């Protein structure tokens, strides 16, 4: 037993010494004060560094911090769906000014929390409101427009008239809208150019919900299969799974098309063959809404963020002028409503 | 016999295992070309001594001298290098390997990194021819008969050029005739300069084959004698430490009505091989019906089929007029069976249960041990106290785990549980005394005879011919799954039974 106490003491001392070396994180105790503007973020089930919507939203929150809008920013990762409410209330009880909740799954918990904490502004990313929820601004994106744009681009650029898309699960509406928008866009371009393009769209749906976005190996294999069938442009839509597909496409010399952000910048392995990206700008969208909260211009209900296509970067020279013109026209048409994607918001 | 040079000497060997002093300052020597028998009861420390010499364990104290040199044995590698080979009681063969693979294991011949099976097979054939050990190097070991497996073990030691061969209880699995064959091989080996340590607990064999006999008891060497200077009674006395009554006190008893009737029983084992073919016999109340035979001739499957542990493929089993063919064990037990199983630790007991629980292992489900599905601890307790005193089970308390008891007392727990049941009409005792000390053996034998005298039918299955002859009123001999003979004990001899056990039924039956 003597040895026992000795070991314990040693361990405790060691941990104290080590902890003294580390800087203790700043706490958020000042958030109850009027003048301190605090923003908290609760993720959907998943990681904050998912390289996908959780991370983009968090980067938006961080941007508001570096922009000087928010004084304290903090996040909580959700490990289990039953913790949604608890995680939100952690910020609510600490007197935060804005709480960002990411993902449709948190919709109900967010609405309930908005009722509990009327003084706090809630921003729900990807939370479409059928009826306006007081206290909550739902940030949504017309992903189908973005998919439509890159679909048209891919169809116009394909030599083999075969293009593919490798997506996460179609159960998640934004993914569905990207994928189906891609198809519709290709068809639209065919209509303009008199071509017939075959479009392969594969959604990754098996083995669990949360893994369909984080299976790059599956994405790569699927992209290779599509290229075996002759596809020469691959749109990777859906987190890491899509990234795997785009990387595989780039390695095989096909065109890769990224998603969410301009992936030319985030996927260096695929950059040389990155034709464009279907952009859904969560980061600026979140930052803008946080800023709007601070200056009081924010309103309840749905807010639509920007969606579009990324520059061609290295491949700019490959893209013929008429294609560039076509893309600009389609983008304008989508924005003014003269072109409709015809994609239902949710998989029927 | 001339006094030749000492090839192996063990001096002052002491080994302590948790709770047992397994080897207590033992001295032992072996001369070149002799057969030196090591005699003792189960647990006397014979195998421990040999495991120490062979390097499977390390002695706490003492030294081992081979050919005049003290050697430090850390593992079997060292003893093999010193020319020692050992044939273990439980064969150290890998069933899914061929004979050649088993023989070369640990001392493989390779050709460019690849196993050289051909040259090993050649070497095995040479050894076979030289010593008259007929084995096929390319046969899989698993399906071989035990006699042949034993030869493979011997070939294994010779392949390694062993000059000292330890045989641990080699005759336990052999017929008397096969044992004779083995003795011939042993003598053959000694004429070629091999020295043999022969471990056994069978007096007759020792007297027949050994040049010298060392008797061990409770981890100590009692004496070393020459067969010409001693006899069975004296040896038994040395082994057990007291006068031993070598015969069972058994009065004549009139057999009554037929209790067990077996007709045309055929059983397959787990490998789906037919190990019992068309067996028929009957056992009457008040008689002990012995089934003799070398292990592995279908006795295990036969008793499993009779007790409900295995379903026969055809035939019928009737107990007291009730057809119980293929019925589950509980139904058979409730019809009056008491079963002392072959492997007490595997079947008879749950070692991590208390003695009290084990004493109700088969009866826990009915009153007084349980009522409406709830166990009544008090009844278990009372029952166990009663049985512990009635059957002289040596245990500190009924709440000690059965695993903590000695083998003899474990067996007594089983015997107490089985024989104390109210409605016993038939006792099936399979190897009831295997591995036990003489005291327990005597006790269990007397309990079996008591049951017989009470008019219960007893089916005794044993590989020990002496036990069969001492207890049975009638004897059946099993050979290759068939009953080749049924005789009254009085009207037969050891030799005759031995012939039958070896399959010589056509001429004699």
């Amino acid at each position, binding site marked *: *037993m003597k*040895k*026992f106490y000795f*070991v*314990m003491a040693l*361990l*405790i001392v*060691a*941990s104290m010494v*080590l*902890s003294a070396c*580390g*800087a203790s*994180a700043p*706490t*958020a105790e000042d958030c109850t004060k009027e003048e301190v503007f605090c923003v908290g973020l609760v993720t959907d*089930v998943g*990681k904050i560094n998912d390289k996908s919507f959780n991370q983009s939203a968090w980067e938006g929150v961080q941007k508001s911090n570096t922009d000087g809008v928010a004084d304290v920013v*903090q996040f*909580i*990762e959700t*490990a*289990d*769906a*039953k*913790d949604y409410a*608890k*995680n939100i209330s952690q910020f609510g009880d600490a007197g935060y000014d804005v709480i960002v909740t990411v993902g*449709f*799954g948190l*919709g109900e918990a967010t609405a309930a929390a908005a009722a509990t904490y009327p003084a706090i502004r809630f921003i729900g990313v990807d939370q479409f*409101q*059928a009826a306006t929820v007081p206290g909550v601004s739902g940030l949504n994106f017309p992903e189908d427009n973005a998919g439509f744009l890159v679909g048209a681009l891919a169809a116009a650029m394909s030599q083999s008239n075969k293009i593919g898309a490798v997506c996460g699960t179609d*159960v998640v509406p934004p993914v569905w809208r990207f994928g189906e928008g891609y198809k519709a866009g290709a068809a639209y371009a065919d209509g303009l150019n008199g071509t017939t393009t075959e479009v392969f769209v594969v959604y990754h*749906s*098996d*083995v*669990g*919900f949360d893994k369909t976005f984080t299976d790059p190996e599956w994405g790569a294999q699927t992209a290779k299969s599509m290229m075996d069938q002759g596809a020469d442009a691959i749109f990777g839509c859906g987190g890491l799974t899509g990234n795997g597909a785009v990387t595989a496409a780039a390695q095989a010399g096909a065109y890769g098309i990224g998603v969410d952000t301009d992936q030319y910048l985030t996927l260096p392995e695929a950059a040389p063959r990155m034709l464009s990206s279907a952009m859904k700008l969560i980061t600026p969208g979140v930052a803008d809404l946080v800023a709007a909260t601070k200056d009081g211009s924010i309103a309840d209900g749905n807010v639509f963020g920007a969606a579009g296509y990324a520059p061609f970067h290295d491949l700019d020279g490959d893209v013929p002028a008429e294609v560039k013109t076509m893309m600009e026209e389609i983008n304008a048409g989508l924005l003014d409503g003269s072109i409709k994607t015809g994609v239902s*918001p*949710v998989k029927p | 016999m001339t006094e030749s040079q000492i090839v192996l000497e063990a001096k002052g060997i002491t080994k302590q295992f948790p709770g047992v002093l397994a080897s207590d300052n033992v001295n032992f020597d072996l001369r070149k070309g002799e057969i030196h028998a090591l005699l003792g009861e189960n647990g006397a420390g014979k195998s421990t001594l040999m495991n120490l010499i062979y390097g499977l364990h390390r002695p706490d104290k003492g030294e081992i001298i081979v050919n005049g040199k003290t050697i430090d044995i850390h593992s079997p590698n060292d003893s093999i290098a010193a020319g020692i080979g050992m044939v273990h009681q439980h064969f150290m063969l890998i069933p899914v390997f061929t004979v050649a693979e088993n023989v070369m294991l640990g001392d493989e011949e390779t050709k460019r990194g690849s196993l050289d099976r051909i040259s090993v097979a050649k070497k095995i054939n040479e050894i076979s021819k030289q010593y008259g050990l007929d084995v096929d190097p390319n046969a899989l070991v698993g399906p071989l008969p035990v006699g042949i497996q034993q030869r493979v073990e011997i070939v294994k030691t010779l392949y390694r050029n062993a000059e000292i061969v330890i045989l641990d209880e080699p005759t336990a699995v052999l017929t008397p005739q096969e044992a004779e064959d083995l003795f011939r091989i042993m003598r053959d080996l000694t004429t070629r300069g091999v020295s043999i340590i022969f471990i056994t607990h069978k007096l007759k064999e020792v007297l027949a084959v050994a040049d010298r006999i060392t008797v061990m008891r409770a981890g100590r060497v009692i004496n070393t004698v020459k067969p010409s200077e001693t006899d069975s009674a004296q040896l038994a006395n040395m082994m057990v430490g007291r006068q031993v009554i070598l015969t069972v006190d058994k009065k004549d008893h009139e057999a009554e009505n037929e209790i067990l009737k077996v007709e045309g029983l055929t059983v397959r084992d787990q490998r789906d091989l037919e190990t019992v073919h068309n067996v028929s016999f009957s056992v009457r109340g008040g008689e002990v019906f012995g089934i003799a035979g070398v292990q592995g001739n279908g006795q295990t499957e036969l008793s499993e089929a009779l007790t409900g542990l295995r379903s026969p493929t055809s035939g019928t089993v009737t107990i007291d007029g009730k057809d119980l063919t293929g019925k*589950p*064990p*509980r139904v058979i*037990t409730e019809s009056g069976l008491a*079963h002392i*199983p072959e492997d007490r630790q*595997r*079947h*008879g*007991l*749950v070692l*991590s*249960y208390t003695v009290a629980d084990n004493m109700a*292992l*088969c009866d*826990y489900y009915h009153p007084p041990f349980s009522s409406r*599905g*709830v*166990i009544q601890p008090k009844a278990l307790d009372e029952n166990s106290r009663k049985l512990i005193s009635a059957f002289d089970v040596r245990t500190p308390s009924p709440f000690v785990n059965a695993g903590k008891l000695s083998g003899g007392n474990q067996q007594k727990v089983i015997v107490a549980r089985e024989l104390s049941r109210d409605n016993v009409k038939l006792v099936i005792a399979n190897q009831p005394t295997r591995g036990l000390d003489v005291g327990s053996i005597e006790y269990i034998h007397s309990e079996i005879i008591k049951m017989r005298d009470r008019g219960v039918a007893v089916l005794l299955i044993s590989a020990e011919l002496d036990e069969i002859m001492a207890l049975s009123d009638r004897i059946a001999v099993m050979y290759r799954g068939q009953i080749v003979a049924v005789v009254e004990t009085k009207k037969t001899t050891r030799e005759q039974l031995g012939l039958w056990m070896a399959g010589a039924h056509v001429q004699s039956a």
Partner: protein
Amino acid sequence: MQEEKQSNSLTRQILQSISNAGLVPFLAILTAVVLGGIIIAFVGGNPFLAYRGLIEGSFGSTKALSETAVWATPYIFAGLAVALAFKGGLFNIGAEGQLAVGAVFSALIGYALPEWLGVDLPTIIHLPLAILVGMLMGGLWAGIVGWLKAYTGGHEVINTIMMNYIALNTTSFLLNGIMKDRSPTNVIARTPLIADSARMPAIFDGLRVHWGFILALLVAFFIWWLLNKTTLGFEIRTVGLNPDAAQYAGINVKRTIILTMILSGALAGLAGAIEVTGLNYRHELGFSIGYGYDAIAIALLGKSHPLGIVLAAFLFAAMRNGATRMQFLTQMPVDLISMIQALILLFVAADAIIRYIYRIKAKGERVVLTRGWGG
């Protein structure tokens, strides 16, 4: 007099054995926590703040306590499920799948039954029915594995792992298909909310802890009673310790294996059913991820004893629940909790390490949990 003395010493013996049984797990937890603290410090966090967060978040307020109980509820059921199988000599890695199946079917009864029957059911019928069906389906799900084990010898470890994936795929299929909440605003894979009549009430107003928690404690007691005081328990334990002796003793080994798996699965299914009827009021794919593996750790930490499991479940619940507060205070990721839990499990499983560090002598026999693949 003598009897009295004996019972007195018996009580002392029991107390002694509890403290003996508890010592190694306690030291395992302690060591893992200290190691965890060192890791936190190593990556630049403040271990004291992190642990303060854990404790505050799990025990710091009535709400925190309530949430810990909420977390503990499924853990107790699932831990009991694994432990019961252990007692019967079976390793149930499939609690995860059985739980999901139980939850799905409990939810189905919860939302669809009134619709099918066309009447509103009273709570007294609807709630127990929803729970029972979840339990039953969990039991059947595991029973398949039990049946395969008994009649074909297929090893339950592989089969329960496979059944986990099958359950995961099947629930995904159902939740995305026929069981999906069709209300226009819903876009994710989840069932509709269950009817009010199938909901278990909360114990206290304003707190989420529900009667399922009390039920969990009662079930833990019941399992202890079942295992140690009934003939069925005797049969399960005998088959677990020595199937050959069980067969010899007239126990129907095959039936007992199947029954053990069914009971084990039913407990896991109960965990799912209680989550649905007591807490979430629906089933969704994001619910209850990884409980099956946590349950193994809980059963091991609790030494397969119901009381131990309740305590272990509380510990794990407190860690999972307190993680929110810990994150809030230190931004330490939840994975840290997984790591500490893995360390606890490591030290509990390899108690030789703990015994070596603290120089504690081994007592008693090794408990055999599984026997290779051969079965």
